C-alpha cells in the first residue's frame, strides 16, 4: 500500500523540530528582501501564498469570500538549511519585522545526520551553564586591615614570563666585589624567556579566520605593543602565517603554531633566513580542548588562493590534520624530538612549548616536560575552548574542564618545588560568560602563569554570534555571517579590520583596569598573584575540596 506521507507530510520535519524558529511579522514587513538576501543558510525565503478573505463592500453586509496572493517570508524545513539563529536577518531589517527565537523543544540532534554523516559544526561546547571559573569569588580583601593598594593611582605591573626559568640555585652567577655577575665561563644553557602580557590570544589560524579578522587581530596586538606598551602576543594557529609578516619586525608579537598537519611550515622554514626578528615563541599543538582526539580541519570551501599559498597546498581540498603527530610514537619522543627540533631551528633563542587538550593524563605530560630543559611551558586547553570545525559529539562530550586540570598540575609542580620553572598556560572557556578578567585572575590564583583566549576575543572584537545554545556555530561551513570565519569575500568584506583592531585594544585596556580592580584590594601589584589560592573561594563545597580553596556561603 502506498504510504500516506505525501498527503500528510509525515517524515518531514516541522518548524517546531528546529532549534530556532523565525518570527516574522507580516504587519511590519515592507518586503524589501534584505533578510532573505543576507541569510547565510538560506533558511528563509520569499514565498507567494494564496490567502482567503471575507469581504463586504456594499452599504449593506454582503460578505464575499475572495482569494488573493501575498508575499511572505517562509522558514524552510530542510535540515540542510536550518535556521542557525544568528540573527543577521534581524540586523538588516529596517522595520524590526523578523527575529529568530530559540526553541527549547527542538529535536535537531535527532535528525542532523543525513546520509549517515554525523553533525559537524564550529563553536564551542553547547552547555550554557556557568563554568567552575564563574563560581569562584575573590574573598580575601586585604584593604580592610592594612593600607590598601589603589587600582587607579598605585603602580601595577601585569606581566608574566613565557619560557623555562632556571631555579636560583642553578643560575650561573658569581659574586665579584660584592655584586652578582653572570659567569659566562660555565657554558650553561640559558633558556630563552619572554616577558609578555599574561592574557594571550589563542591559536586561531588564517584559514579558520578570514583575512580581515586575522588582519584586525594582528593590527590590534601590534598597536597594543607599540603604542600602549602592553606586550600582548598571539598564536597563529596551525597553517602558517603570511610571508610578509614572517619577514617583518612584527613577528616578535606572534607565536607560530606547528600542529600535526604541519600546514604552512614549508613556507615558514623557507622564510627563516629572511627573518629579521625571532617569533615570541613556538607552540606545538598536540591537542585542542574543544575536540580532544580530533586533528584540525579546514574544509575545502575555505581553502582559497591565499590559504593555499600560505599553507602550500592545492586550492579547494579538505585539509584534515591527523589527531596525533604521525612521526612520533611516544610522549618521550614527542618532547625530545619536536621541542628540540623547533628550538634548534631558531638557535635555541625561542621558547618552545606544547599545547595539549585538558585531560586526566595532563600530569604525565607535565612531568615529562619538567625534566626536559628545553621545554618552555605547558599550555592546557580545557573543554570549553572553541574550534572552527569538529564533530558535535567531540565538542559536547569530550574533554576536561580547565580549572581542576590546571590546579592539579600546579599542585604537582609545588610538590616538586618547580612551580616557578615551567609556566602553565590555561585556556578553554575563559570569559565564557563575559567575565574575562575575573576568570583569568582566578586561573592565575589557581596556578596559571598565563591564560589564552580565542572565543572571547572573537565575540568582543568582531561580534561573533556564537553561543552555548548552538546559535550560529557554522564556522566550519565558511558561511560566517559576521565575516569572521569565512574565506568568502562577499562575507568577509563585511568585517572592517580597523574596527576589529580597535576593539582588541579596547578589550585589553579595559581588561587591564579590571585586573587591577581585582588585584588591588587583595594586595598584589608588582607580580601576578600566581598560586595565591587563599584569595579565592567558592560557594560549592565540592569545587572547594577539589581545587583546595576555601568554601564560603
Amino acid at each position, binding site marked *: 500500500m502506498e504510504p500516506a506521507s505525501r498527503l500528510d507530510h509525515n517524515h518531514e520535519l516541522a518548524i517546531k523540530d528546529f532549534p530556532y524558529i523565525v518570527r516574522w511579522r507580516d504587519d511590519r514587513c515592507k518586503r524589501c528582501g534584505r533578510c532573505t538576501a543576507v541569510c547565510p543558510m538560506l533558511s528563509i525565503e520569499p514565498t507567494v501564498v494564496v490567502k482567503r478573505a471575507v469581504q463586504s463592500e456594499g452599504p449593506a453586509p454582503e460578505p464575499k469570500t475572495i482569494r488573493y496572493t501575498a508575499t511572505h517570508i517562509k522558514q524552510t524545513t530542510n535540515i540542510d538549511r536550518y535556521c542557525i539563529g544568528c540573527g543577521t536577518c534581524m540586523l538588516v531589517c529596517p522595520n524590526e519585522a523578523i527575529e529568530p527565537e530559540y526553541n527549547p523543544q527542538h529535536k535537531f540532534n535527532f535528525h542532523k545526520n543525513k546520509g549517515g554523516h554525523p553533525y559537524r559544526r564550529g563553536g564551542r561546547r553547547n552547555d550554557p551553564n556557568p563554568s567552575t571559573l564563574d563560581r569562584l569569588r575573590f574573598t580575601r580583601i586585604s584593604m580592610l586591615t592594612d593600607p590598601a593598594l589603589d587600582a587607579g593611582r598605585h603602580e601595577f605591573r601585569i606581566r608574566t614570563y613565557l619560557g623555562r626559568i632556571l631555579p636560583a640555585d642553578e643560575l650561573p652567577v658569581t659574586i665579584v666585589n660584592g655584586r652578582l655577575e653572570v659567569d659566562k665561563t660555565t657554558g650553561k644553557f640559558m633558556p630563552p624567556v619572554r616577558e609578555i602580557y599574561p592574557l594571550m590570544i589563542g591559536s586561531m589560524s588564517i584559514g579558520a579566520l578570514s583575512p580581515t579578522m586575522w588582519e584586525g587581530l594582528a593590527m590590534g596586538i601590534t598597536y597594543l605593543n607599540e603604542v600602549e606598551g602592553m606586550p600582548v602576543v598571539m598564536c597563529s594557529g596551525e597553517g602558517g602565517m603570511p610571508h610578509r609578516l614572517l619577514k617583518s619586525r612584527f613577528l616578535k608579537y606572534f607565536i607560530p603554531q606547528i600542529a600535526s598537519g604541519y600546514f604552512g611550515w614549508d613556507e615558514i622554514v623557507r622564510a627563516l633566513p629572511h627573518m629579521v626578528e625571532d617569533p615570541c615563541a613556538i607552540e606545538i599543538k598536540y591537542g585542542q580542548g574543544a575536540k580532544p582526539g580530533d586533528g584540525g580541519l579546514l574544509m575545502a570551501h575555505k581553502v582559497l588562493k591565499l590559504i593555499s599559498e600560505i599553507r602550500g597546498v592545492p586550492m579547494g581540498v579538505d585539509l584534515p590534520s591527523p589527531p596525533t603527530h604521525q612521526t612520533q610514537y611516544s610522549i618521550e619522543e614527542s618532547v625530545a624530538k619536536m621541542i628540540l627540533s623547533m628550538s634548534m631551528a631558531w638557535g635555541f633563542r625561542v621558547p618552545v612549548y606544547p599545547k595539549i587538550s585538558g585531560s586526566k593524563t595532563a600530569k604525565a605530560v607535565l612531568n615529562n616536560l619538567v625534566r626536559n630543559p628545553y621545554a618552555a611551558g605547558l599550555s592546557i586547553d580545557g573543554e570549553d575552548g572553541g574550534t572552527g570545525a569538529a564533530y558535535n559529539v567531540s565538542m559536547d562530550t569530550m574533554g576536561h574542564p580547565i580549572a581542576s586540570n590546571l590546579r592539579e598540575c600546579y599542585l604537582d609542580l609545588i610538590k616538586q618545588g618547580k612551580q616557578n620553572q615551567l609556566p602553565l598556560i590555561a585556556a578553554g572557556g575563559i570569559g565564557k560568560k563575559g567575565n574575562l578578567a575575573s576568570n583569568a585572575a582566578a586561573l592565575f590564583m589557581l596556578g596559571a602563569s598565563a591564560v589564552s583566549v580565542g572565543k572571547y576575543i572573537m565575540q568582543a572584537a568582531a561580534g561573533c554570534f556564537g553561543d552555548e545554545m548552538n546559535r550560529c556555530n557554522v564556522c566550519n561551513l565558511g558561511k560566517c555571517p559576521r565575516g569572521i570565519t569565512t574565506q568568502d569575500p562577499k562575507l568577509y568584506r563585511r568585517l572592517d579590520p580597523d574596527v576589529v583592531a580597535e576593539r582588541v585594544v579596547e578589550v585589553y585596556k579595559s581588561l587591564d583596569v579590571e585586573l587591577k580592580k581585582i588585584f588591588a584590594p587583595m594586595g598584589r*601589584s608588582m607580580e601576578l598573584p600566581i598560586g595565591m589560592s587563599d584569595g579565592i573561594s567558592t560557594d560549592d563545597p565540592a569545587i572547594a575540596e577539589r581545587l583546595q580553596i576555601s568554601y564560603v556561603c
Partner: protein
Amino acid sequence: MCRLAAITSNEYFSPVENIAALETMKEGHDGSGMGLILKTLGGEFEELKDYPILSGICSKDGLHTLDDYLHKLGFKLKYAWTPRINPVRGITPRDYYFARVYDYPDVYKDRSLDEKEDLLLQTRLSLRKLGENDESIIVFSFYPDILTLKEVGDPLQLCEFFGLDNSPLKAKIILAQGRQNTNYAINMYACHPFFIQGYGSMTNGENTAFLPIREFLTSRNFPGYLGYNSDSEVFCHILHYTCKQLGYPLTYYKDVITPLKPEEIDMRPDSEALRLLKMSLRPLCIDGPNCVIAFTPDGTCLMVQDAKKLRPGAVGGIKGKYGLMSEECGLDSVVPKRDKSQDIFPMKYDMVIIKPGAEEVMVWNQLHG
C-alpha cells in the same frame, strides 16, 4: 599595626629600653603578645658565647621530655636561666620559661659551624614536634648567643611579669615586637621576632603574597622552612634563603622581596644577573604593606620597606647606638640626644644597613645598586 622596636649598640643594654620604646608607640588597644630576641648577650651569658642556647617555654612534663631528648643526643646542660616571674593580672603564667645553655655532643665539638647549625636546627625542630600536640614544649631558638622570650600580653605588663626591669639580662642587639590588633588565641609560634640559623627578623603589616611564598620555601627541601603560623615568618626565611642558602650579599634581600622593574634593572651595574634573579625568585616577591627589621649572623641590622612604602619606619641614633623603629617616637625614647635631622625614613628603594657594633649607618639604594 604591630609595633617594632630594635636597638643595636656597642654596649650592653636592657630589653627594658625596647619595651619603653614600644610603649611610646602604643596606639589604642594592645596586648596580644610580645616577642624579644636578644643577640650578643651580656650578663650571665657573656662567658657562654660559644654554646648554643635553647629558648622556649614548657610544661613540667615537657621539661622531662626535653631533658631526656637532649641528653640522648649528647647535649650537656651548662647553664639554665629562667625569668623571675611576677604575678600580673591578666597574664596566665606557664610552667617554665627558659633559656638553657648546652655544650655540644662530643662528636660535634670539632665539626664545622655548618654542621653544628644543622644539628641545632634539627634538634629544635624535633623538640617542636615532640611538644606540638599538647603544647608541652615550645622552642623558639637554639643557637649560640641568641635568647628569645615570648608571651601573650601587653608589653609593659610582660616586662613586669618577666621581671626584666630588675634583671641583669642584657644584650647588644635586641629586637622587640608588640602585637597590636590581633587575636588573643594566638599560637606562640606566630609571635615575632622569628629566628633561623643566625638570622632574625620582625615585620609589621600583612604579607598578601604569603601563600605562594610559603609554598616556594616549603618546597626548597630545607627542614627549617616550616611552621608559618604567622605570614611574617617567611621574611626571616627569605633572608636566610637569600644570604645563607644562595650565598648572595645582603643587599640582594631587597632585590628578592621587592624586585625592580626591567627598565630599572637596566640601570644597575649587575643588571644581567639581576634579570635572572627576578625571574628565578619571582614567587618571593612581596607586595606589602610591610616594614621589615632584621639582623644577620655577623650583627648587621637592617630595615626595608615594601615597594610602595605603605608602612612607616625610622632609623636614627648616634655612633654606637641606633634604633630601628616602626615610628619616630620610639627613637626619641631610645636615643633622645641624637641629631634628629639625621634620622632616616627609608623609602621604597632604600635598605638601611647598620654595621655590627652600631658603627655606621648606610642607606643602600636599590636603583643604583
